[in-house]
């Protein structure tokens, strides 16, 4: 199924929760949705007979300077089609519902997004840092991140 | 041999000292050879060169390793139980050295010719497990405790099939000694054996003398006897195989090296040891390899007797035959180690209790029945 058709299916099901379909730029098209509806949409994508998106490739957190974005690359092993779901959250209160219930892959990917970009996934059972040390401060992949001078008395850089 | 040395020195104490030092020198020399052998044989099997830099063809490599271990700092971690931690390696080495007291070199040199030699061997070789548990527990390390527990359970369970193998041979020897089969009483008396009933089979001298007269008389081929023994040969060969497998387990060699399983519990019970204490464990491991090989030689391969009957037989040739047979078994152990993967702890117990033990009992029953029928 093409991205546009998937967008149509989602649009009829969720209405204005699905904000837009974007295929203007080079590369892959993506569907933008409202950030608080990601879990319902994920469950629909996974369980709908014609979609069957059973496989989450990755969750990417992005810093767009004025806001943060979470990008979900989803794939269907049985039907062999892909879709990209994108949502935006404000930088001062980046909260997104977790999709851990839908795809277990999301467990570690959400922890990584929290660790490196600071997006808080509400409902995640164990949202702790994964790549950085557990007591690290700040979220290193943000564009305005300043590395600390010292970590436990050891000079950084 | 004792009388021979005593005739020169005329002092019983010094004689005893010399007699006891000869095995020690042998152990040290043997350990060096075995370490080099292990390095070179494994290299050969893996299409490598092995050590080449120390001396021609790398033959001084084990000496270099011993010197290196002597120089190393002897670390005693803070949290260990110091007396036990320090005592364990010495006990380990002492236990394996004690076994050498009854291991013969030829018909005329057995350091201590006990009439219960096999019993003594069983007892002394079991002492090693105490030092393993001691060292593992005293190290105060989770890995070493795991290794010690594994090792203890493993050695205790594999001692049973091994003991049954020993018992079978002891029974067989008693039969031959008193059944008038192949070996005469005069020959027994000539080598100074005592024969008091069943216990005669526990004397290493008797076991070896019973197998004299060519490789066809070895216990691996059913012992001395006429052509009717042919149907017992599968059982004696099976028994030899059972003993070989059990001895691999008793010496913690692959595929039974779970107590020091490198990929699981790093080094097992001696993970905290360094320097000379580590070398003690290391030496004791190689010494144990020789001990089980020597037992295998005594029990199944005719001990010091020549494989060709009277040809190349005698006290000096006896030492040659005994040591070379034992080395052949050591080579087998090294060969197996570099070929097979490692078993898991429960599979190891299964093999010990559910396979080897019943099979060894069957072999015991069949072979002793055969002995009784004669």
């Amino acid at each position, binding site marked *: 199924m093409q991205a546009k058709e998937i967008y149509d299916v989602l649009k009829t099901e969720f209405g204005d929760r699905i904000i837009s379909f974007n295929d203007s730029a080079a590369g892959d098209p993506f569907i933008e949705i409202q950030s608080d509806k990601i879990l319902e949409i994920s469950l629909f994508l996974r369980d709908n007979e014609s979609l069957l998106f059973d496989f989450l490739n990755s969750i990417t957190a992005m810093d767009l300077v004025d806001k943060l974005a979470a990008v979900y690359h989803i794939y269907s092993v049985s039907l062999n089609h892909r879709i990209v779901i994108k949502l935006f959250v404000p930088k001062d209160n980046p909260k997104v519902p977790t999709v851990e219930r839908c795809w277990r892959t999301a467990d570690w990917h959400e922890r990584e997004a929290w660790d490196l970009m600071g997006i808080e996934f509400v409902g995640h059972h164990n949202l702790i840092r994964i790549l*950085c040390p557990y007591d690290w401060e700040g979220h290193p992949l943000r564009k305005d991140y300043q590395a600390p001078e010292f970590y436990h008395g050891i000079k950084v850089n | 041999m004792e009388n021979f040395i005593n005739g020169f020195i005329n002092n019983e104490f010094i004689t005893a000292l010399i007699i006891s030092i000869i095995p020690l020198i042998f152990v040290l020399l043997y350990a060096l050879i075995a370490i080099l052998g292990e390095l070179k044989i494994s290299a050969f099997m893996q299409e490598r060169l092995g050590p080449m830099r120390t001396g021609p063809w790398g033959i001084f490599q084990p000496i270099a390793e011993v010197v290196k271990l002597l120089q190393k700092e002897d670390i005693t971690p803070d949290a260990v139980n110091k007396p036990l931690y320090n005592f364990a390696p010495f006990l380990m080495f002492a236990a394996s050295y004690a076994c050498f007291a009854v291991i013969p070199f030829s018909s005329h040199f057995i350091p201590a010719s006990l009439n219960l030699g096999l019993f003594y061997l069983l007892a002394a070789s079991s002492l090693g497990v105490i030092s393993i548990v001691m060292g593992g527990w005293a190290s105060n390390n989770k890995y070493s405790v795991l290794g010690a527990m594994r090792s203890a359970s493993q050695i205790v369970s594999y001692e049973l099939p091994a003991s049954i193998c020993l018992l079978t041979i002891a029974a067989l020897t008693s039969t031959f000694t008193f059944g008038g089969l192949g070996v005469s009483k005069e020959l027994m008396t000539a080598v100074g054996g005592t024969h008091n009933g069943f216990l005669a089979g526990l004397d290493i001298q008797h076991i070896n003398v019973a197998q004299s007269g060519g490789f066809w008389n070895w216990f691996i081929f059913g012992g001395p006897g006429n052509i009717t023994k042919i149907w017992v040969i599968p059982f004696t060969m099976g028994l030899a195989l059972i003993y070989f497998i059990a001895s691999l387990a008793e010496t913690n060699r692959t595929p039974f090296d779970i107590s020091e399983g490198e*990929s699981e519990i790093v080094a097992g019970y001696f993970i905290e040891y360094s320097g000379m204490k580590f070398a003690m464990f290391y030496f004791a491991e190689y010494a144990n390899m020789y001990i089980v090989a020597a037992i295998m030689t005594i029990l199944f391969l005719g001990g010091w007797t020549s494989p060709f009957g009277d040809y190349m037989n005698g006290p000096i040739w006896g030492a040659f035959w005994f040591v070379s047979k034992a080395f052949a078994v050591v080579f087998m152990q090294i060969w197996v180690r570099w070929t097979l993967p490692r078993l898991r702890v429960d599979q190891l117990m299964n093999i010990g209790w559910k396979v080897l033990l019943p099979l060894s009992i069957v072999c015991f029953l069949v072979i002793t029945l055969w002995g009784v029928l004669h």
Partner: protein
Amino acid sequence: MGEKKKVDVEYSPFESDKFRVNIGPQHPSTHGVLRLEAELDGEIITEVIPHIGNLHRCMEKHCEFKTYPQIIPFVDRLDYCSAINNELPYVMGVEKLLGIEVSDKVEYIRVILSELNRIGNHQIAVAAFGLDTGAFTPFLYLFRDREFIVKILEHCSGARLLYNYFWIGGLARDIYPTFKEDCLDAIKRIRITNAEIMDLLINNKIFIVRTINTGILPGDVAINFGCTGPVLRGSGVPFDLRKAQPYSIYERFDFNVCVGTGELGTIGDSWNRNIVRMNEMEESCKIIEQAIAQMPMEGDVREKVPKRVKPPKGEIYSCAENPKGELGFYIVSDGTDKPSRIKVRSTGFSNLSVLPDISKGYMIADLMVTLGSLDIVLGDVDR
């Protein structure tokens, strides 16, 4: 009197103390600096918590400060056992953003080298897996014969481990004249070794009892956890990106997708994951043979690429079937010569996340076998 008071205390005659043990980061068989915190009940594992990140090198942050061609060496260092395979999805993604088509010759060379490196990676995986079970000799045999592959790659690129050979719009330099003959020689050698390894290791009775029925991963769970590559195929799911969504020129070759069939043990156990790798080596040999027969020797290996690579604004998710699974690069371009964001969907990260679920209730020795059969590289997991 009153009714009988119900006692609901559960009496357990044997209750042993559980203890926690740290396996790694310095441990012979954690395949790098992985730390596993294991709770043990005697020898039985009751819980495993992987702590990753000891090899985190901030690769994604670094990429934001480098130009597109400068990123290729970073990509090599992700899964250093299969560096060529890492480069392929990255350069394909950037080429797609730029709208560059590479010539047939380049595509064939890319496929041949990728498949050679796939074999090399699987050889390391099987070797290390054997080492986890205690078999040391097959390890050296496999490393001895991996040398033939490394020599070809060294001859092409000049490096033995981290090649930096696939560039945007082509290759770093042309192949050498005896390339085809060397590849065929290497394949011959690989087949001999594989037959030997099957006898020595894979069909060894001890190896079989050690690996079957350990770390069983059912197919639907594997998909739900995002496992890919031999881990997923070992669970019986015939999913291979080379077949499902053919990239490069993979649709031109005839090869099978190997799955774990459960001929020994259960589908999805460690032995089946491993046999998939052994069979895939043979499939890769088949692909290389076909590619060598079809490959043109003439032609340039570099397309016209602007000196400053500036892809238009846009984003792309470019993925390829790495030896270890699906490796994806999510490249976001803002129109400058440096990417705005590069996210690596690494295979090991998802494949390792399944370990706590499939190692519970087994023994500590099985944990090592399961971990070895997942075939992770910490450079890939931690990035």
